[in-house]
Structure formats: structure tokens, C-alpha cells
């Protein structure tokens, strides 16, 4: 079905293009001027995008191939891929990578379940719909650093209301396991609303008639969720999970405030920051940044491959 619709789209494209071919040559003076104006109007935006994204990325790649430490200016030299070798053979990188993956997988999984629950709730709310949606979005509206500080105070012994619930003498932010759990908790608290919002948009795609028909046919709530709602929401789920995974992989603010990466809780972004802005080692730091960039790109590709081409509008029953 999806193949057919794809082929149909392609053929209509061809159809529209074929007559476009000859007209192109005979484009009227006015039309050409209009198109040139269009290009001109787009140009500033396109140039700015190239300047603000392509240039820094290119510069980071160039830096990552150098030995470049601000404190040893005389030793600056081209070293090829040796910075990458240094990073990839360092225990610190793999420790940070493991921590980052752990945070990403656990927090996105929890966020998905909670976000779906919230989305279903918001979808069904009958009274004060706007108020409920606003209230649920509050955590997402709070600046991450501010929220992280309040979590930090909450979990600090003697000061925090959450730490007071624990046995005396426990300092949860100073232990690897509990500190990581707190970081994940802060991430989940902060971004579940975002997940819920994206999933809510997906829920709107599910026709009520279909659910009613299924109900008449005897499908229970769980069957309706897994057989109808989730498959139909697949494009929205892909987008939500992809966005959140890419975000979670770059986790920085919460860790920076809550633990400063101590006790082995640093993420890859923290490692990059420390090497760039504490050690002033632009070569190694840039290599870490480029590796993070590659990881994020790989994750995105992996997601799209895993979910198939579940782009918005494709066949909901998809493959299994």
C-alpha cells in the first residue's frame, strides 16, 4: 500500500515535471524575475545558516586534527587523527559514554511511558482542558539550570526536603548510583511534558470512529491501545523518541549542576566541556565534540532504520 502510494506520488511528480520542462525555457520575463527575486530573498537566510552552522562545524573538525592547547601555543601542529585515537583509547571517554547511554536509555524509556500516560489523560480530559495542558507543561517551561539547582538543594543533606526523607547521614548526590538516579529523575521530570505534547499530537491522528468500531467488535482498552492507537501514532512516536534521544544523549545542564561529573557521573558533553574549557585543550576537546556529533548522527540514522520509513503519513499498520 505504501509502495503504491509512493509510486503514485512519484508518477504525479513526473507528470507535473514533464510539462514543466519545455515551459522552463519559455519562462516569461516576469516569471524569471519573480524566481530570481525569490532566490534573492532566500539567500540571506541560506547564507546565515551556512555561516552559523557549517563554519563552526568545519572549524571544530579542523581543530580536532591539531595539537592545540591554549597553554602551549608553541606546540601547535597538525597531528591527523591522533586526537581521535587518544580519545577512543581513553578510559574516561568510555566511562562517560557508558554513563551517557545509560541516562539516555533509561530516561527516554521512562519519559515515553509517562508521556504516553499523560497524553492519553490530556486527550480524554473533559473539563478545564486548557488548564490541565498548561499545568502539565510547567516543568518544561522552567529553565533546566534553575530546576537543577532546586533538585540539588532538595537532595542536599540538612537542607533539602527530599534528603530529609532518607536515613540520616546519606548524601545521595555523592554516590554513583543514587546520583545518576537523581540526574535521570531530573531529566524525566523536565522533559516528560515535551514527550507528552508530541504524543498528544499523534493521538489526534487516531480517528474516534475506529476506536468505537473496535469497541463494538469487543476490543478491550489494552487491545485498543496496542492494536490501534500505538500503530496509528507511530510517526509521532518516532519523532518524539528521536528528539528526546538526541537531546538526552547531549545531557549537560543537570549533571553540571547536580554533580559536576564527580564520582564518575560525567556525560560525554561534560567530558568535552572539561577538556575544552578547563584544560584549554582545543584539539582533544574538539575531537570529543566531533565524536558526539557523529554519535548523534548515528543515533538518528539508527532510529529511522529501526522504525522503517515511518514518516508522517505512511501506512500506520507498518511492518512489525
Amino acid at each position, binding site marked *: 500500500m505504501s509502495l503504491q502510494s509512493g509510486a503514485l506520488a512519484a508518477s504525479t511528480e513526473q507528470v507535473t515535471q514533464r510539462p514543466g520542462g519545455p515551459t522552463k525555457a519559455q519562462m516569461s520575463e516576469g516569471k524569471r524575475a519573480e524566481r530570481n527575486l525569490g532566490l534573492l530573498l532566500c539567500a540571506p537566510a541560506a547564507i546565515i545558516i551556512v555561516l552559523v552552522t557549517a563554519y563552526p562545524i568545519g572549524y571544530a573538525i579542523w581543530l580536532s586534527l591539531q595539537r592545540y592547547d*591554549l597553554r602551549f601555543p608553541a606546540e601547535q601542529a597538525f597531528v591527523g587523527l591522533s586526537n581521535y585515537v*587518544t580519545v577512543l583509547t*581513553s578510559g*574516561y571517554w568510555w566511562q562517560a559514554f557508558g554513563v551517557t547511554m545509560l541516562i539516555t536509555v533509561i530516561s527516554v524509556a521512562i519519559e515515553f511511558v509517562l508521556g504516553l500516560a499523560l497524553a492519553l489523560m490530556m486527550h480524554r480530559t473533559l473539563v478545564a482542558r486548557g488548564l490541565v495542558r498548561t499545568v502539565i507543561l510547567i516543568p518544561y517551561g522552567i529553565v533546566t539550570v534553575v530546576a537543577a539547582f532546586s533538585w540539588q538543594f532538595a537532595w542536599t543533606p540538612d537542607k533539602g526536603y527530599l534528603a530529609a526523607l532518607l536515613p540520616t*547521614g546519606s*548524601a545521595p548526590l555523592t554516590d554513583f548510583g543514587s546520583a545518576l538516579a537523581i540526574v535521570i529523575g531530573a531529566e524525566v521530570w523536565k522533559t516528560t511534558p515535551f514527550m507528552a505534547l508530541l504524543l498528544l499530537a499523534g493521538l489526534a491522528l487516531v480517528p474516534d470512529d475506529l476506536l468505537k468500531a473496535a469497541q463494538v467488535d469487543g476490543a478491550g482498552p489494552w487491545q485498543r491501545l496496542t492494536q490501534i492507537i500505538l500503530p496509528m501514532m507511530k510517526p509521532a512516536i518516532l519523532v518524539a523518541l528521536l528528539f528526546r534521544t538526541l537531546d538526552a544523549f547531549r545531557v549537560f545542564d543537570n549533571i553540571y549542576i547536580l554533580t559536576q561529573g564527580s*564520582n564518575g557521573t560525567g556525560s560525554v558533553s561534560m567530558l568535552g566541556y572539561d*577538556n575544552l574549557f578547563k*584544560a*584549554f585543550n582545543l584539539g582533544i576537546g574538539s575531537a570529543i565534540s566531533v565524536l558526539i556529533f557523529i554519535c548523534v548522527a548515528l543515533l538518528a540514522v539508527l532510529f529511522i532504520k529501526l522504525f522503517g520509513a515511518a514518516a508522517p503519513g505512511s501506512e500506520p499498520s507498518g511492518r512489525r
Partner: protein
Amino acid sequence: MRGPVHPGRRRGRRRPLIAGACAVLAAAAIAGCSSGATGPPVLNVYGPADGAEQYSAAAKDCTAASGGRYSVVYQTLPKSADDQRLQLARRLVAGDSEVDIVGIDVTWTAEFAAAGWIEKLPEDVAAQVRQGTLDGPLQTATYQGALWAAPLNTNTQILWYRKDLSPTPPATWDEMISASERLHQQGLPSYIEVQGAQYEGLVVWFNTLLNSAGGQIVDEDGNVLLGRGDAAQKALSVMQRVAASPASDPSLSVNKENDGRLAMEAGTAAFQINYPFVYASIHTPPPDGGGGGTFIDPQGKPTSADTGRRVVDEFAWAPYPSVVPGQPAKPTIGGINLAVSTTGQHKDLAFAAIQCLRNRDNQLRNAVEGGVPPTLSDLYTDPSFQAKYPAWEAIKNSLDNASVRPLTPGYTSISIVLSDLLNPPAAIDPATAVPMLADEVQGAANSEGLVP
């Protein structure tokens, strides 16, 4: 969601927004123009936020004293040292010509000098700066045999203790550890408060113990000396024993200077290694200070009942405990040095200004009002200084035996690596840790590999 969209309402709002944006831009443009006013050259001093009030007052006085040659403005950097260093580095790397003088932590001298961010002091200025200045602080401003900065103030740790719990102060770490364990067995306050968190303070503790035992982390050229002799092993053994003792503070591995002060004021600590600010703090009423600390019962335990006796009544100080009996400890010194940036436009005036900013009057004000010990040795005999610092003799003693942290450009990396490897201190294995430490420090000193 099904409610109507109001495109008109949004468009209506846009106009005041644009007007507002224009107003802001216009204001910025006008402000930009007004800075080009005529007058003597402005020298910007970028320095730490702590003590900014005193430094600003000094800047005002120096402007007046210059007789119209220059005017000095103090620009406050962030509170945390890492943030200060980062902002200075960003400005200096970018060639900010508005940065004339920088107030830098003593550990950054070598790094800023090697990176080409600060100017060497000219011979005549260096000679004047050396005159009457304590040796330790001068060493922190020296790199490769030349003076790169002028010591503005210094800081050092001494032992603060409870004289009801330990009538004679321990002279060595061994004595202190056994005294603490004895107190613990008697059920009395027993904690030894020292900086055990994973940060610079932990490296300061290690550096002091190592130097006191006759060792050194690394020399100026980046040669690692940690593995020579048994000094490092002695130092690590002290750290491990303090942290792993049943009498120690359970949160020692996350404690910084302020946590030690609070534990002492709360009556749970018997000993504390800390800077002189703890004396001012315990004598300051809440909420700014400890207000004399908590009440203590006749045995010395903290109590909520009004016994009429507080921690402050038993609060005393002594020289930093030594590692090798009979040899005085070599406490690591901190502080701020003033240097002239390579990006400023009025370097001669800047050299004149740093001498004014660190003159006797200004250092005395920093000491008395800001709580930071001066670098001019004759101020220690000044009655107004001694009145404010009853512990001045112990402080001076610490400064005279001072050790400095490695004067090498890679110091920050060394510190990050060391604080990572030494935390938590209770988990150190003194017998096997030294070769690994030496190896990691070597990499950091040459900026090879990653920092955690």
C-alpha cells in the same frame, strides 16, 4: 486545541514588540557612543567577585592618587575560580583591548605566562614588587626565573581546634588522628575537618602533606617528582587514615572549606584545617556567620539547651600539624596576583596601577575588611592587622614555611587529574597508588590525553 486561532491578536502584539526592540537597539547604540568620552585612559582591572568591594575602593583611591594620569575601574568576574579563569581566557584569547590588569589565582601564573596572556614585569617594577613582600607569595608569581605578577594577597591554612577536647594542640597528623579516635571512643565530638571533596581543595591538602614530607608534585619544566622517595606514600597514608578512621566525618569525601567551618560551629568537629575566615565567621552573628557556634554541655557535646557555653569559648588555633615529627609543615598558599595583560593598550600605566593597588593601605583594607591576609611582611606587625587577626602569629608561621603548588602551565590539568584520583580519600591505597599518580600527572603536565 479545538479553540479558534487568533491571528489578529498576535499581529496586534507584534508592533509594540518591534518598537521595544528598536528602543533597546537605539539605547545600546547611544551607550556605545557615550563610552568614547575624553579623559585620562581607563584601566580595567578584571578580578574575583569576593572582595570586590575592597578592590573597587582601592581602584577609586588609585585613580585619585594617579593625579589624572589614569583612572582605574574594577570589573567583577564570577565568584567561582573556574568561571573567572574561563572568562579571562576567552577575553585574552580574543585580544580584548579593554582588559588591562587581571587579578589571577596564584595557580594560574605559569599558565597565563606560557600562553602569552600576561606581560613579564619590567626589571624596575619587579625590584619594587620584591621589596618587603613575603617569599611564598613571590614564588607563586614567578615562572622560569622571572616575575610575571605582583602578589596582592595571600592565604594559608592553620589548625583550628577545641581546647576543651584537646588541651594541647596536636603537633603532627599522627597525634591528631589518635586524639580524634580517643575522643570517638569516649563518645565526644571527634571529627577532623579537612577538604576531601573532589576539587582543588583536595589537591591543596595533598600538596601540603607531600611538601611537608619533603616531596614535590612536579617541577617548573613539567618533570614529575611524585615518585621520588617515600614522601608521596607518607602523604597518601595520612589522607587515607584520616578519611577511613571510624572517628572521621562520614561526609568528608564531599566536604569543602565551608562544610568544615559548619561542622566546627555545629559542635561535631574537634579539629579543623582551614583558612582564617573561620575565625571571623564564628564571631559573626547569624545569618552571615556562626554566631559563636552551638551550645555545648560540660562534656563538650553539642546541645540545644542553653548551657551558657558555646563552641566559640573553646575555639583555639595552632600551627598546621606536621607530617614528619619535629619538621614544621609546609602549608600550601593561595591568594591573588595582579598581572598586566598583553592585550591592553596602556601597559606602562597598568604597571604603575598594580603597584598602587597592592600598596600598604590597600592591602591593609583588604585584610581588615575583606579577610584576606596581606603579602607585605611588615603588615603582620601592624596593630590594626593584629587586632583583626588574633591568629596572626600562626598565620605568619604558615606563610614563612609555605609551599606553592606546581608552577607549570599544565597545573589545572594536573589538579583535575589528582582530585579525580584522590577522591574519595578513604579508598586510596598508599602502597600502590604512587606510580599510577605519577603516570597520570606526567600526562596532564604535558597536556597529553584527556582530563576526566
